[in-house]
């Protein structure tokens, strides 16, 4: 970890570490990083003792709030968020699945109103282990398998 940060260390900002390998683009999309003016670096399939491989995103001069980062939890459930000040990690948190998941997944129910009307999808967390979320509109329950399928598609 320490070594990783040294190579491409940022002075101030946020490092999202332990992103599920291959999901960095998806995470960047969810966080809306393409609209950021800050410098953003992506590293994919980096070796990691903990999980074999991982993706990393570094955002300079911007501290992401916990709420912002929790939005990535469905795509990268093992990610950690490090807030960096003067090259030091001053805060480190694990992402958590928020109670409301807005505009991240589409509903797997083809007859859900969100597939027809201009409205953001919204899911409510029913259970975190095993993971179960419920569509706020059509009430379809999505399991971890369903969520993975939606994310891959």
């Amino acid at each position: 970890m320490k070594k990783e940060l040294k190579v491409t260390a940022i002075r101030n900002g946020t490092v999202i570490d332990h992103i599920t390998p291959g999901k960095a683009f998806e995470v960047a999309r969810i966080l809306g990083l393409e609209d950021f003016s800050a410098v953003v670096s992506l590293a994919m399939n980096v070796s990691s003792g903990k999980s074999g491989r991982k993706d990393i995103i570094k955002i300079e001069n911007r501290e992401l709030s916990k709420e912002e980062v929790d939005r990535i939890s469905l795509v990268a459930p093992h990610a950690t968020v490090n807030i960096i000040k003067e090259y030091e990690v001053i805060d480190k948190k694990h992402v958590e699945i928020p109670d409301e998941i807005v505009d991240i997944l589409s509903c797997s129910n083809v007859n859900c109103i969100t597939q027809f009307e201009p409205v953001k999808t919204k899911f409510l967390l029913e259970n975190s282990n095993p993971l179960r979320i419920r569509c706020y509109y059509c009430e379809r329950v999505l399991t971890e398998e369903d969520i993975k399928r939606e994310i891959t598609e």
Partner: protein
Amino acid sequence: MKDVISIKDFDKDEIEQVLQNAGIMEGFIHGTDILRGKILATLFFEPSTRTRLSFESAMKRLGGKVIGFSESGSTSVAKGETLQDTVKITEQYSDIIVIRHPQDGSARLAADAASVPVINAGDGANQHPTQTLLDLYTIKKELKRIDGLKIGLMGDLKYGRTVHSFASALSWYDVSLQLLSPLGLEMLEYIKENLSEKSIPFEEIQEIEDIDVDVLYVTRIQKERFPDVEEYEKVKGSYRITLESLDYIKKAIIMHPLPRVDEIAPEIDKTPNAIYFSQARNGVPVRMALLASLLGWEQ
């Protein structure tokens, strides 16, 4: 409560309040002016004669008036207007909205868009909460209680919207359930989990002979759920209530959300077990109770 969208939004006290108010509404069934000057808009994007007439009857018995449409072909929806816009326009002309719509979740979206109360009269395959409330009211009216009863749910328990909502509402009560369905059409896992979480004893059975209940709630088995016609015909035959079935059903009341196809033989209609027609009638006081309380009426 501003809207009535899903039975999941109700806790036991709220359900009981509706049932109690429905009992009071029986006293106003021949007319009152509780809602004089109020207008109900019925937005029926797909046809449902009975539910619409029941709501209209309820509103008129309360002294209110009704506007609306019963199919969307002649509305702005056909011109591409969003549901949210249709609702925002309708609320300019009315005090309360009842919506039936083919898409799941449409009623929730409508309620969020509207500032006036919205009642869900069926959103696709998802919810039809007023049906569940009238089912509970019927049991209470017939048997004077819900707690302590043995209740059987029979038919397509996998795809049946009505039985899902009914099971979910019953889980607030001290009941035990028998779930009678053909193989492949068993109750959904997450609903069974919910029953277990709420310590509701339930038993899954396949034969009418194994029934031992106070209330038997029968629903339709739809042909299109089966891979082949032969399989359907076989199941249809064994899931039909006839006079012979009364040997097992004994004195249990038989309910059905209607319309039935042939899962209950017509000769059952004349037996004291059959209460499905009065069940439909109970939709009126229950809907009166909801309309009145959402528009500010208090006992």
